[in-house]
């Protein structure tokens, strides 16, 4: 079930009404959320429900075992069970074909024939997200940061909580799990805020991202014939598309959770206004980056073992982060390209931890130039992210440098695309201005004008735009991960 579908817009109010009017006790509300989450997931592919139940069961058990283990060796053994099972499932469903095909390619290059074949395994939606979530539970227990829960309904609900099940935010057990155990009271203001965040998320997804996708698909589909500037525009649009798509998803997820009295972590914090690559990665897909920081970067030594080791650790983390996104070389290259930008920046400029941008003036020229540089550089790395393979990515970069003047494709030539460009020239600035004005807040509609007429005008315009573009058949980009 997609968030941007009518099914979800019927499903959400139904669960909401049952949750607050029928199932009033915390325990029964948890049962309802668990059932609703499984229905939500089964609407996709009921066969993979078994996998998520199995994964939850193993971590529930191993969490308790780790906590109750008599000695460190026992603790490690049970932690290993959890890690192997989770990463094993991920490797089997997501990476098996990649390893096999890479092995076949390697053998081919050295002239050895193999009988191996790729299995074309169906990818269970959301596996990368909920696997990381459950892993954090056992690791945190192992590290003594939290105690295991005895309430299996709460734990299974935490793993499969439908607002964030398929594409995050990746929640830590210590943050989300206690919310399942505490009594949740309905708060009108929080619920209204949740609805507003859903509306804003829908706008970003169905109005901005899905319309960008049409032009992006055209440009990437004709990259060999397109003009260099159009290729640059194409990849910038792709950046906006990915942001609108994924941050829109996160907003809908966080907003939906608010309706049930849950608080999910912030996943994006106006990343377009970052003035350094370091700042960008503190604002982009925050929960994943925090996960890699806490469970990979710090255990590798972080910045405590000297400068060279720190750069090495950064490269490893970015490489893994790329690989987490997809079982393809293009994603690994995307991660490494970002690592390069990050390391070079660290070498040249000392990162000032610029996380607060509330006071920044937009027309401060120096800041603006830095924002544009960061935007363009990150956008260029996304060529790897969007390309089908490395050949396409290199061809795309080649096209951007081809000023020979022989370009048969011009996406601005068709009237349909012109209309699309016109629409986007309204929608994208609306999104960017909204986000700029609301920097420091969860979302732009959080603090609305007091004038009722103005407030409702904004609601009506956004609702009409969402109704217009709510086709329900454009999946979220991050669902493939």
């Amino acid at each position, binding site marked *: 079930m997609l968030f941007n579908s*009518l*099914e979800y817009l019927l499903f959400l109010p139904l669960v909401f*009404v049952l949750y*607050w*009017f029928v199932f009033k006790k915390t325990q029964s509300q948890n049962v309802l959320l668990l059932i609703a989450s499984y229905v939500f997931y089964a609407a996709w592919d009921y066969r993979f429900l078994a996998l998520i139940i199995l994964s939850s069961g193993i971590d529930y058990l191993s969490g308790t075992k780790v906590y109750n283990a008599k000695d460190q060796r026992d603790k490690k053994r049970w932690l290993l069970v959890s890690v192997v099972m989770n990463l094993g499932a991920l490797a089997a469903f997501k990476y098996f074909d990649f390893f096999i095909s890479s092995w076949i390619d390697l053998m081919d290059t050295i002239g050895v024939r193999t009988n191996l074949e790729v299995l074309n395994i169906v990818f269970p939606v959301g596996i990368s997200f909920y696997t990381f979530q459950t892993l954090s539970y056992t690791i945190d227990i192992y590290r003594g940061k939290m105690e295991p829960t005895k309430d299996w309904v709460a734990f299974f609900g935490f793993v499969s909580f439908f607002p964030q099940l398929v594409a995050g935010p990746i929640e830590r057990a210590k943050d989300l799990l206690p919310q399942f155990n505490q009594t949740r009271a*309905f708060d*009108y203001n929080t*619920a*209204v805020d949740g*609805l507003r965040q859903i509306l804003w998320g829908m706008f970003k997804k169905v109005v901005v991202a899905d319309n960008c996708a049409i032009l992006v698909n055209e440009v990437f589909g004709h990259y060999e014939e397109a003009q260099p500037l159009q290729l640059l525009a194409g990849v910038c649009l792709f950046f906006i598309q990915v942001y609108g798509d994924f941050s829109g998803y996160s907003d809908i997820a966080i907003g939906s959770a608010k309706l049930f009295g849950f608080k999910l972590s912030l996943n994006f914090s106006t990343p377009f206004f970052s003035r350094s690559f370091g700042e960008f990665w503190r604002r982009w897909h925050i929960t994943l980056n925090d996960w890699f920081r806490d469970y990979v970067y710090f255990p590798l030594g972080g910045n405590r073992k000297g400068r060279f080791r720190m750069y090495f650790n950064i490269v490893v983390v970015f490489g893994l982060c790329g690989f987490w996104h997809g079982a393809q070389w293009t994603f690994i290259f995307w991660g490494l390209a970002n690592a390069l930008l990050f390391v070079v920046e660290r070498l040249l400029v000392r990162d000032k931890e610029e996380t607060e941008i509330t006071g920044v003036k937009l027309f401060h020229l120096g800041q603006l130039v830095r924002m544009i540089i960061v935007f363009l550089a990150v956008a260029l790395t996304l060529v790897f992210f969007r390309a089908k393979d490395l050949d396409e990515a290199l061809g795309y970069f080649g096209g951007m440098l081809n000023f020979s003047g022989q370009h048969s494709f011009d996406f601005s030539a068709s009237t349909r695309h012109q209309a699309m460009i016109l629409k986007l020239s309204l929608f994208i600035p609306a999104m960017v201005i909204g986000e700029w004005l609301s920097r420091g807040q969860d979302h732009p509609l959080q603090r609305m004008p007091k004038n009722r007429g103005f407030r*409702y005008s904004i*609601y*009506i315009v956004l*609702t*009409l735009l969402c*109704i*217009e*573009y*709510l*086709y*329900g*058949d454009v999946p979220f980009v991050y669902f493939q991960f």
Partner: protein
Amino acid sequence: MKTLILKSSLFIGLVVLALNIYKATLPYYWGNSELSRKMSGLSISEDVNLVYFGPSAVNREFIPSVFEEELDSGGISAFNLGVGAMYYPEQDYLVRNFIEDQDMRSGIQYVLLFAQMPRPLNKHVHSVRVKYCIDWHNMSSGVRYFYHKNNFEQVVNYIMGYIENTLCVGEVFEMLMWRAGNFEIDQDNLEAKGYSSFELETHKEEKFNKRHKKFVRKQDGDEYMKSIHRKSQGGKGTKVGSDDQVVIDDQQYIDRMARQKGIDFIGVYSPDFDFYLKLKGLNSIYLGDSEDYQAYLSIENRMDRRHLNEEGAVIHTQRLARKMDEFLSESGSGPAKGRKIRKEKDNKEPSQERTNGKKGKKEKRNKKQKKQRQKKRRQK
């Protein structure tokens, strides 16, 4: 909590209500721009008393002028309301609304409909063209039909299509822009009374030539034509399934509506409708019998797998006119009976006229059309 539910429901309800009120002010064919043009043509065409709805098989293959010439029964002035990709939910909706439309139906005596089975709503389920016509009647027919076919995906598609149409999902922009749109009919199309010849669309000549060449090269229509022929030979009288009954019910429903308004509703059945004999009490023309079949299914008369070229369309329309004559003489109804428009024809035996005059008429028509094409090219 109740305040939140009340406020948000009221907000969404009012927005949707406003959209539906606005939609109600648009003509019922607003979602089909090509039909909007044809309707504007029909509204300024005098003396039309027969309209023919259907997909491209009507748009490209029914020539009103040939039909009128070929009819023994005079007094019929036809208009082609066929539009490409007008499938079952849409044409059913349009015919029902047309019969209810007092302005448009005035003077119309016959409404012909190219009967089709309900189509799965897969590929373009979210497009305006597919959704705007899914009203309650169409939704329930689609659901019943696909339920009997055990195709539950389509049951869901029809229900979702109906909900999306009611909530105006994906329709807002087109609805708002409809009034700003220019839906005047093209002069050539008006003169041809709605008929759109492939040959006259010179700006698409290259595309059509490619399609025809591909068709001739692959002969991919061959198997299709054979299957139609086989159906026409042995399909009649096949048992009516529960799914077929849905289509029959709909045809009967439209027929009842038409009778109340004093209109003869006539279903035109292709060979796919092997249950047509069961359509008791309905006016129908069946095109599946094998008379002239090979003539108009032969490759030289076809544009592509599914469409006749102009030569084929002439043969097809003449055949339809003969069937219409049969229908009129069998039913003994209609103002056309005995009223001949072309007085010079009255002195001739109809069959003699058909054999003697056909070649001459055809040549004249071909010359006229050639001239039109040349004129168009020169203008370009």
